[in-house]
């Protein structure tokens, strides 16, 4: 079956972003209009005079996709047309520069489904820190160094911010769980009003992992509980993806160049413990483990 994002786009070999887009569009179907901010998506899918998009698509600026989508939805409302309106955007444009427009879109209650593919840094400009970058991550603006373990700050909790706006459907998802992701997109469409889905989307260039392991890295994020999969419906936690075997965070970290320093620097082990505590806290807060499940030791 022909994908709604055509091949021939210029995304890196092994990039998870086109897979995320196709999963979203598979679920949403062709009756969908997409707005996308500036970022890897725009640059890799729409080099004039070509476009990979087989649905109507618009790019305006880096920080305004939510507002652009608001306007599209308002126009469709006015004309009595019934199309899905989606934003598909990176974490830089979502958690940082586009926050004002997103807050406004949520607040006005537009029927816009906002999907953030979260690769945890500004990849389009060369792996600079975003407020979605996890702690202890080395980026080009928070590099590890003699006196630095990389990004000093926790990840901004954007799903919680969406919930605080009374967005009726808020979820996290992962490229490694395609059935779950497609189900969540369909559920978002079924609930009127804004929705926010943040998808963990590994970046082969920025995260520096072995070719072919894109999906495995995403799966490890979930299995270590560093990336909990959950849904909020009308402000209530409505579901989580349980983990059968919780892996230690080392399994996830050591597979990625952006955490290499933690295994080489003095004191890195303490930082790994900090990250393990974050994972454990996620497991507790969202109830990710089955009763009696074991935490696996490193490697197994």
């Amino acid at each position, binding site marked *: 079956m022909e994908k709604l994002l*055509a*091949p*021939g*786009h210029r995304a890196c*070999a092994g990039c*998870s972003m086109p897979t995320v887009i196709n999963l979203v569009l598979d679920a949403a179907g062709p009756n969908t209009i997409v707005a996308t901010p500036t970022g890897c998506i725009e640059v890799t899918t729409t080099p004039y*005079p*070509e476009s990979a998009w087989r649905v109507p698509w618009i790019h305006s600026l880096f920080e305004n996709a939510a507002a652009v989508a608001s306007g599209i939805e308002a126009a469709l409302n006015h004309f009595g047309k019934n199309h899905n309106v989606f934003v598909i955007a990176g974490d830089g444009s979502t958690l940082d520069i586009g926050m004002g427009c997103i807050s406004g879109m949520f607040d006005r209650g537009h029927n816009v489904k906002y999907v953030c593919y979260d690769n945890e840094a500004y990849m389009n400009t060369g792996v600079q820190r975003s407020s979605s970058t996890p702690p202890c991550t080395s980026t080009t603006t928070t590099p590890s160094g003699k006196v630095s373990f990389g990004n000093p700050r926790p990840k901004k909790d954007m799903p919680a911010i969406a919930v605080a706006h009374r967005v009726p459907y808020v979820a996290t998802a992962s490229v490694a769980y395609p059935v779950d992701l497609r189900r969540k997109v369909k559920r978002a469409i079924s609930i009127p009003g804004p929705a926010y889905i943040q998808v963990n989307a590994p970046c082969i260039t920025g995260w520096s992992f072995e070719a072919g392991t*894109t999906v495995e890295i995403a799966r490890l994020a979930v299995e270590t509980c560093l990336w909990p999969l959950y849904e909020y419906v009308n402000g209530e936690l409505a579901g989580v993806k349980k983990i059968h075997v919780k892996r230690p965070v080392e399994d996830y970290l050591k597979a990625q160049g952006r955490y290499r320093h933690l295994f080489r620097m003095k004191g890195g082990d303490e930082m790994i413990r900090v990250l393990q505590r974050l994972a454990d806290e996620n497991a507790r807060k969202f109830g990710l483990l089955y009763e009696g499940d074991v935490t696996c030791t490193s490697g197994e």
Partner: protein
Amino acid sequence: MKITVAALTEPGSTIVNKTGAWRTFVPVVNHKRCIKCSLCEIYCPEGCIHQIDGLFVPDLDYCKGCGVCAHECPRKAIDMVLEEK
């Protein structure tokens, strides 16, 4: 091609860009091992693995050789092989 007002672009027109040229390794599918789980098709970033006559086949015009399909195949039915060009 004449330029279009406001750079309006036709849908799916990147197909003129054959990204297969990017490839170093090429996926070779052992169809006998394939259980038709379709995970390779789902995960392929190029969306270029198609089921043809029941068999999952990568479109080498576009396959960038990323190896995700091979890595994710639960039956290890896909090998990444250095391509001779």
